[in-house]
């Protein structure tokens, strides 16, 4: 019986010939990432709870300050200092102010075939180049840091067969919202979402990151694509090579299969307060907004900034609306500067911020107040996710968010002449 790509990565990491869903294996971790959302607690546990504190291999660890950058109060600063000092004392790669952790990982570390744990739920992004990335808490992170290993319950895989090509003006962001709206917020709980088929090949690496990144919003352990020439070219551009290239066997076993025709996807919006609360963007057209956010590990890449800039060029942000533009990394920010995109956003009246998680995670910059409404390219729209519990978050594509910023109400790109 064959294996899926996810099963092959786990088998290799466990040093066994084959694995089956439901098996529990001890695996060697290729890399581990932790950000300022939880690392201060991990460091405290390391210092206070371990009988024999040591690190298996500091070279496999990456610490990234990205959630509250720059820090917004003395307590945040103290928590980040703890992380910074620990990284320095232990020779751990440390990044601060350079971007959202997953974008930094994609640009600098992730290789096809690797098994990576990250202390952040959106670690599932790494499947875009055929790596198995999954989110864990700080206790799992600490265990991996000390032993270099962890335990894994082998998940079932759900196959998403993608056919056709996305129409003009429809984006991978619309597609993943459509997929989550179809399967539900726990539709793939503890499973792997494998994106495959001819349609998958048409998607760019940025598109693939957008899909894998939100696998966790359907409850999945990870999302994954088979690495093809686009994935290998992406790694080469960033000075890396695959660790291993795995393909799912023809006789691999899937828990379920879905087929999505990309040519039929239309602009969609996830309404408050659940990511699977899906509707066609037209249905919410005209809802008044207070803030629009273009950024995040889901949709803050150069491709997304290009879409936003092409729509807002020659227009202004609506009166009394804040439009936050937050490139997902410094590399993206610099590229946007070169292409003149930042000028376009600034001339339109957008607030261009330093690369970080920003309002997507509802602390630090851009937090919204009582009863305010945000339209966002971020990852989540849970109650109070972006600020006050009474505030509301709608999720849409870079195009829908930018059009809404111009109109001051939820709008589609076609509404902007």
């Amino acid at each position, binding site marked *: 019986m064959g294996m899926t790509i996810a099963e092959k990565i786990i088998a290799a990491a466990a040093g066994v010939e084959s694995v089956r869903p439901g098996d*529990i294996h001890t695996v060697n971790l290729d890399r581990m990432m932790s950000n*300022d*959302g*939880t690392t*201060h*607690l991990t460091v*405290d*546990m390391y210092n206070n*709870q*371990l*009988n*024999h504190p040591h690190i298996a291999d500091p070279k496999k660890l990456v610490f990234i300050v990205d*959630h*509250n950058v720059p820090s917004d109060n003395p*307590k*945040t600063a*103290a*928590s*980040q200092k703890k992380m910074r000092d620990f990284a320095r004392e232990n020779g751990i790669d440390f990044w601060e102010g350079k971007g959202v952790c997953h974008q930094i990982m994609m640009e600098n570390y992730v290789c096809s075939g690797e098994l990576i744990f990250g*202390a*952040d*739920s959106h*670690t599932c992004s790494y499947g875009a180049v055929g790596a198995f990335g999954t*989110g*864990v*808490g*700080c*206790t*799992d992170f*600490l*265990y991996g840091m*000390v*032993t270099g290993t962890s*335990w894994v*319950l082998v998940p079932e895989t759900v196959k998403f067969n993608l056919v056709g090509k996305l129409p003009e003006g429809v984006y991978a962001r619309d597609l993943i919202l459509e997929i989550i709206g179809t399967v539900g*917020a*726990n539709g793939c*709980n*503890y499973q792997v979402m494998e994106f495959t088929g001819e349609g998958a090949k048409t998607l760019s690496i940025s598109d693939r990151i957008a899909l894998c990144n939100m696998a*966790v*919003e359907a*409850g999945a*352990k990870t999302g994954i694509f088979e690495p093809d020439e686009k994935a290998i070219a992406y790694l080469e551009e960033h000075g890396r090579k695959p660790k291993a290239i795995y393909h799912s066997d023809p006789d691999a076993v899937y828990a379920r299969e879905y087929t999505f025709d990309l040519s039929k996807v239309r602009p969609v919006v996830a309404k408050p307060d*659940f990511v699977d609360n899906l509707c066609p963007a037209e249905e919410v057209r005209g809802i008044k907004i207070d803030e629009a956010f273009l950024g995040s590990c889901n949709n803050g890449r150069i491709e997304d900034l290009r879409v936003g800039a092409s729509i807002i060029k020659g227009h202004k942000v609506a009166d009394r609306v804040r439009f936050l533009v937050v490139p997902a990394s410094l590399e993206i920010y610099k590229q946007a500067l070169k292409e003149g995109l930042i000028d376009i956003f600034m001339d339109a009246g957008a607030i261009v911020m330093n690369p970080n998680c920003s309002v997507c*995670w*509802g*602390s630090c910059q851009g*937090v919204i107040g009582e009863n305010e409404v945000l339209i966002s390219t971020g990852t*989540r729209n*849970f*109650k*109070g*996710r972006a600020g006050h*519990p009474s505030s509301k978050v709608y999720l849409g594509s870079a195009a829908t968010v930018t059009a809404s910023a111009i109109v001051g109400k939820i709008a589609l790109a076609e509404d902007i002449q």
Partner: protein
Amino acid sequence: MDKGTIFKFHNDLDTDQIIASQYLLLPNLEEMKAHTFESQDPDFAKKVKPGDYVVAGENFGCGSSREQAPGVLKALGVKAVVAKSFARIFFRNAINIGLPAIVCKDLPDEVQTGDTMELHMSEGTVEANGKTYTCTKLPEYMQLILNQGGLIASLNKEEDK
């Protein structure tokens, strides 16, 4: 075992509701715990007593991997979380820190906040309102972690050898 009071929550209750982002970088769980379930009930942390239970529907703890979510519940003395199903990261984090996360399909629909219940871990049953409910057994590996008081206690035991 003593009875504890039930605090019941809805389906798809995400970890942002358990502990909101703006509190995650506070120095420790002791400071964070006063804000537990703040968006759902601002007085939750004052009302809940050690030995009480959190009961929920499907997909409890979805969203962010923040271990502070099970962490603040444990810090408040919540004895266990009983739900129809759990999101995987919350489930794993809860077991790792030694907070029982118990799947029970029938109980959540038949109890309300303020009812009392009693969890019998070894029998895998819950008693509430004069009725006994059977829970899904944890995989043996996870039960072992829980029995040892969590993953760090189990790691210390391994490394003491």
